[in-house]
């Protein structure tokens, strides 16, 4: 496979994406924007999708939004399916019976953080040659906004509602990249829609690395339906998540962690929480303790990343 170089400007990308219009995802859908950026970054790839919004919204028979080979099997097995495809292509292309091409496993946070984590870990440990991209919208949106291991502390979901008893989810977001990095794979990174060039170049870098072993991307993809904000705010929300330090942008390459977007003066978390109905209850005085916990978690996570960055090649 030919190496994909980083892009400098939008004109470096193909004019049209192989993720086609006409799909049934919501207006302002973060994962849909992510899907489009993925196909722009890597015009030729096999996509292995988990069960989730992107799957059901793009492939309602007899229609498909994908002009690349695409498959959905189960909720939890896109990593082993992708690994199987990559292994078969390796063998078949050597015999001239197939064309070798990048294999991208695409999964939501439910599939990645929770349901498929064991299968993903297996594929990472075996150093299978594929790219895993998690589009994280911080809950099971497709099934009706149930909490996942990716939902942030205090978020109101249908299984962690905010009310008289609890102010939303009581636990912090799982450290996905921490788990992934513990497999010591060639490349792992976070990205989000607002920093679109960073995201595209990371996808391209991940594809290059996938010749050697697995590469992993964790992409924050806001969901207007589940986070309950106006559809035109998706990119702004994606930006605010970064600027509040709630979603740090970093990569781990060759064992070295590097923060790619350094937030020196974090924006107030309150501004981010108050424009989303899943979190605005955290600003009520009775929920001050949860808000404080969320702030401390964001700060602790950021400090930890800075320490890991300074520590050298620790992964």
């Amino acid at each position, binding site marked *: 496979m030919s190496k994909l170089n980083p892009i400098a400007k939008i004109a470096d990308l193909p004019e049209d994406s192989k993720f086609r219009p006409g799909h049934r995802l919501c207006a302002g859908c973060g994962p849909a924007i992510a899907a489009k950026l993925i196909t722009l970054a890597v015009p030729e790839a096999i996509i292995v999708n988990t069960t989730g919004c992107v799957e059901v919204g793009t*492939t309602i028979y007899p229609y498909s939004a994908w002009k690349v080979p*695409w*498959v*959905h099997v*189960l909720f939890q*097995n896109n990593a082993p399916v992708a690994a*199987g495809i990559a292994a078969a292509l390796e063998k078949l292309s050597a015999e001239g019976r197939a064309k070798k091409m990048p294999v991208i496993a695409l999964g939501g946070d439910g599939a990645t953080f929770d349901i498929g984590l064991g299968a993903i870990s297996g594929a990472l440990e075996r150093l299978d040659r594929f790219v895993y991209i998690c589009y994280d919208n911080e809950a099971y949106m497709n099934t009706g906004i149930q909490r996942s291991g990716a939902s942030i502390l205090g978020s109101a979901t249908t299984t962690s509602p905010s009310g008289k008893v609890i102010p939303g989810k009581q636990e912090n977001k799982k450290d996905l990249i921490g788990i992934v990095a513990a497999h010591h794979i060639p490349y792992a990174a976070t990205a989000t829609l607002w920093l679109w060039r960073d995201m595209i170049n990371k996808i391209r870098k991940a594809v290059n690395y996938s010749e050697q072993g697995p590469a992993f991307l964790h992409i924050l993809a806001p969901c207007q339906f589940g986070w309950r904000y106006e559809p035109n705010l998706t990119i702004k929300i994606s930006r605010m998540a970064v600027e509040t330090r709630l979603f740090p942008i970093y990569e781990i390459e060759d064992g070295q962690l590097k923060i790619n977007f350094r937030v020196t003066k974090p924006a107030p978390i309150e501004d981010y929480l108050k424009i989303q109905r899943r979190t605005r209850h955290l600003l009520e005085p009775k929920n001050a303790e949860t808000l404080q916990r969320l702030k401390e978690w964001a700060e602790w996570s950021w400090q930890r990343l800075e320490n890991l960055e300074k520590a050298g090649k620790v992964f």
Partner: protein
Amino acid sequence: MVIGASLAGARTFTATASQGLAYMWEALYAASGLRLPIVMALAARALSAPINIHNDHSDFFGMRDAGWIMFNGEEAQETYDLTLMAYEIAEDPRVLLPAVVSYDGFIVSHAISDFYALSDEDVIAFLGKRSTGPKLDPDNPRTFGVLALQDSYFEFRRQQYEAMENSREVIAKVFRKYEEISGRSYEPLKKYMVEDAETCLVVMGSTVGTARSAAKILREQGEKVGVVDILQYRPWPAKEAEQLFSRFKRIIVMEKTMSPGMMAGPMYEDIASTIYPKYNGVKMVDFTYGLGGRDISTKGVIDIYRLGKELIDKDKTDVVHFYGVRE
């Protein structure tokens, strides 16, 4: 992993047993729904709880409706032969369904046994390279594993049923083709001393040999008994089963599985629904035996035969009978 490799166009094989099979319940349906010609070996074993590891057929019958072609080998030779034939059947463009070849866990899977292997050249000539089935191809990008709703799901499933029906003819053809190169002939229902039999013992797996020994002894004592082994379970060989089973007076079904809440096991139900109500002169009785690897001897099969015959003649056949259990 094999689902992915099969989608990429490779010929794939996997093996499992017991909990491993139960754990892949979803994947079984996905493999047949995606029409992938995967071949899988199953060392048939009991299911937890309590955990056991030894042979019975609970796992095998558990995948009955998953849309796989299902064979059961009595011993190593049959298992080997059926595995090779399974590829030729599964990959036929009229079929494109996964196939499982089951054989008894431990009793066959962990026993040392001689068998005749074909030469690599013969196998390559028999199977060729895989050229059919779904393929992820950049030059012809297609979408697999779609969301099919109320307006289309039923049609997908109906086609799967059709493919299974098509496999009957393909199986017969492949059995013949394999006989030409191996000299070993196969048929969906394996018969022993059934020609003049009044009573038939129906068994599956490694017990078939034990049942043959028992039938031989019983024949010497003047009992008109035969043995039928269900080698091809899905597609159920309905025509062959109707012709065969309708001519017995008594059918004693021995099952290494249990269907709690039902008055019979799966093989009994299959045979009964094949011959009733057309041939209501045939009486049947069902025995559950050997769960969790409990051994069955020749004497055990003889006991089941005598007891079964007595129960049928006294018309006490409306419940499952358990053989070899402490109660």
